[in-house]
């Protein structure tokens, strides 16, 4: 249903040529092809250039705090299972400030899609290292090069046994669109780390840099095999695999909430007088 309009008319705060544009394009096509109405989608984001996405696409949006995109999305999973939840933020927001939430939400496995704009840099604050910035890269704050080991989100998520782990690249539009669709259709927590250049502040990881290295996993690759996936997660540097690296079906956060029935909490209400029985404990 191409009838749904997702793109907002707002002028963005993104640099011309920013990787956020092709990412938005892929996302919009994915939503269109999944025939989701804008009011059926809720996007949660943190703070950063990537995190401004809810302003540049017409869906429900919760543009919260830096690093805190995930926790509020869990509130939606409690209240209303009917809406599609997309969490979208930068690499700094997700893997730096928000690291603790990332790890615990992989454990909870709520039904949501997590799109991480991984430009391997802090964009909005003008070019400091993010957890994924490459070794030895110099920045204004790390003039002698980064000494901490880079964070490998794929390996991390697999180590935590996330139920869906994938990598995309904004330079591969169709592939990215399909990847986002698959992630949205996955029942459970789906992490998609999306490589994208930051044309202003990351002079190392350019379109060209990525294009020389990325390759798409083909039909021979079995994303259900955990051991194979673990090995694949190590691949980074000369060759960078794109696609669904691992997936498995397992119960989601809401499945464990046995006290809930099919009617969403948001459609329920009580009257105080109905709860008279609660007073009994105190008599």
């Amino acid at each position: 249903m191409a009838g749904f309009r997702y793109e907002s008319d707002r002028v963005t705060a993104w640099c011309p040529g920013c990787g956020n544009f092709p990412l938005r394009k892929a996302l919009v096509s994915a939503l269109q092809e999944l025939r989701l109405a804008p009011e059926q989608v809720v996007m949660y984001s943190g703070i950063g250039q990537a995190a401004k996405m809810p302003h540049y696409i017409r869906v429900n949006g919760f543009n919260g705090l830096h690093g805190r995109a995930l926790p509020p999305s869990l509130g939606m999973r409690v209240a209303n299972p009917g809406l599609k939840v997309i969490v979208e933020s930068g690499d700094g927001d997700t893997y730096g400030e928000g690291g603790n939430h990332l790890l615990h939400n992989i454990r909870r496995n709520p039904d949501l899609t997590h799109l991480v704009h991984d430009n391997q840099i802090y964009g909005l604050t003008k070019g400091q290292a993010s957890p994924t910035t490459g070794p030895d890269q110099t920045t204004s704050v790390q003039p002698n090069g980064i000494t901490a080991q880079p964070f490998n989100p794929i390996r991390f998520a697999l180590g935590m046994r996330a139920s869906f782990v994938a990598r995309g690249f904004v330079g591969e539009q169709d592939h990215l669109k399909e990847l986002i669709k698959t992630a949205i259709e996955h029942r459970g927590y789906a992490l998609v780390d999306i490589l994208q250049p930051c044309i202003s502040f990351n002079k190392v990881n350019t379109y060209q840099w990525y294009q020389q290295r990325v390759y798409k996993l083909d039909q021979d690759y079995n994303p259900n095999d955990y051991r194979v996936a673990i090995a694949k997660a190590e691949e980074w540097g000369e060759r960078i695999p794109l696609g669904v690296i691992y997936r498995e079906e397992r119960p989601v956060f809401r499945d464990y909430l046995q006290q809930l029935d099919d009617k969403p909490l948001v459609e329920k209400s009580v009257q105080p007088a109905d709860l008279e029985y609660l007073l009994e404990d105190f008599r």
Partner: protein
Amino acid sequence: MKLNILIGGEAGQGLNTIDLILGKTIFRSGYHLFSSKDYMSRIRGGHNFNMIRFSNEPVTAISDEVDILVALNEETVTLHKDQLKEQAIVIFDGDVDTGGKELISLPARTIAKEINPRGVNTVFVGAVLKILGLSIEKARAVLKDYFKKEEVADDNIKLLEKGYQKVNSYFNLPAASGLKDQLYLDGNNAIGLGAAIAGVQFYAAYPMSPSTSIMNYLASKQSQLGIVVEQAEDEIAALNMALGGSYAGIRSMTGTSGGGFALMTEAVGLAGIAEIPVVIADIQRPGPATGLPTRTEQGDLLFAINAGQGDVPLMVVAPRDHKDAFEQTFRSFNLADKYQIPVIILSDQFLADSARNLESFQLERLKIERGLPSPEELAKIKDYKRYEITETGISPRIYPGQVPGEVVLIDSDEHDQYGHIIEGAAMRKAMVEKRGRKIAKLAAEELLEPVYQGGETIDFLLIGWGSSYGPLQEAVQLLNQAGYHTGLLSFNDVWPLPTGELTSRVEKGARVIVVENNATAQFSRLIRSETGLTAEKSILKYDGRPYSGKEIFQRVISEVIQ
């Protein structure tokens, strides 16, 4: 007549079980009672004690003077000997120096060994009931409620009877006042109950003393109520989760103590600027940092009213007692929803861990007000603006998915009426003023003035806020009995601060004394900054312990009157 029973021992000796069974039995016998816990932040060892004070008149505070000392170890006698009244009785399994006070040596362990060694404490309960001359019948029923397994309940009933038979009656209690339709609950249960009855559907929190029992209570009810309690990975997540639930359309809450509240403050600001209703309970303990985890203080006042960077629209309510904790929690949800703000319930360990009897709540009188549009208003919504600029500052609030074709956008950045990020000066100014109008309206229409108790012509005016109400009531009674004409002004809304009653009382010219459980006179400073009024004297306590009425009385005499 008020009697005070102190039960002391090591952590892990089961003091709370004695307290609960004895307390509930006294409660069901129709007395007024007030019980409190003094415990260390440890699981085994150390020294903990519980006190149960009861009477046929209302009891609103602890007392330092002990009538019956139940000592589960020798150290308890050593530590509390000085508090024993002339006619006091000590119950101990063995021989101990009581400093000349009556000792009842109760061979509880030997008795329990034959029936059920784990029920030693129940032998003590039986003995205390006999000493007090109370009927054992009520205690049997309490044990049946408490021990879910029938064999265990039966063993304990036998042990109760053994203890009862072993000793003599000492007190000739006046008949109970025959109270009807009462509840007996602690401050945190009152908050949990208030939240449940207000229809909370999501409680996200991270464990922290002394707030955890709110989470425990709601967790224990989640199946019955069909609600969700989530243990968050940290307090930052806890409040952000609650905000997500509220945005999604359900009543959401979190609870913590000062340290966790410190972590939450950025999200308090988010609730303020994004206009998301939420209720946050801060059950204070002494700080800074880890402070005294299981003790009490009113030290978070100025922190709570100033929580978050920038001008955060928020409200802070400090419950005065157990009934108030219930009522204010219920009210906080309605106000949070109506004004789309964070409402902070500022309680403390003293209120949280003390329990008392009160008149049962009239639930049919309570009305949940969600502040959501009516079906007619919903039908008219088109081109929805989450932050529509209105005269009252309150914008129509809908939740995602509620209105076909409409999306709901909220933002922690400054935003326009649709929720889109902006930086323009005019819109920024308009939004700050819109949020300001909400608080102005709330201040004008919703605030509860402090309660006043006392005569119209007084020489001394004691001012307190939150949980000091009970001890202050006793202190004022004692002062008046001693011939000092004293009135009491007790606040529960502390931010915005209601100033009408305060100014008119102070203008009458009594000597003003502010009594607080902190070291830096935070409430006096708040009064001064909001009204320009300066109290003559502050009575402060910051040893981590609650006031007793007598202590306030004595300190008013020694620090003000003399």
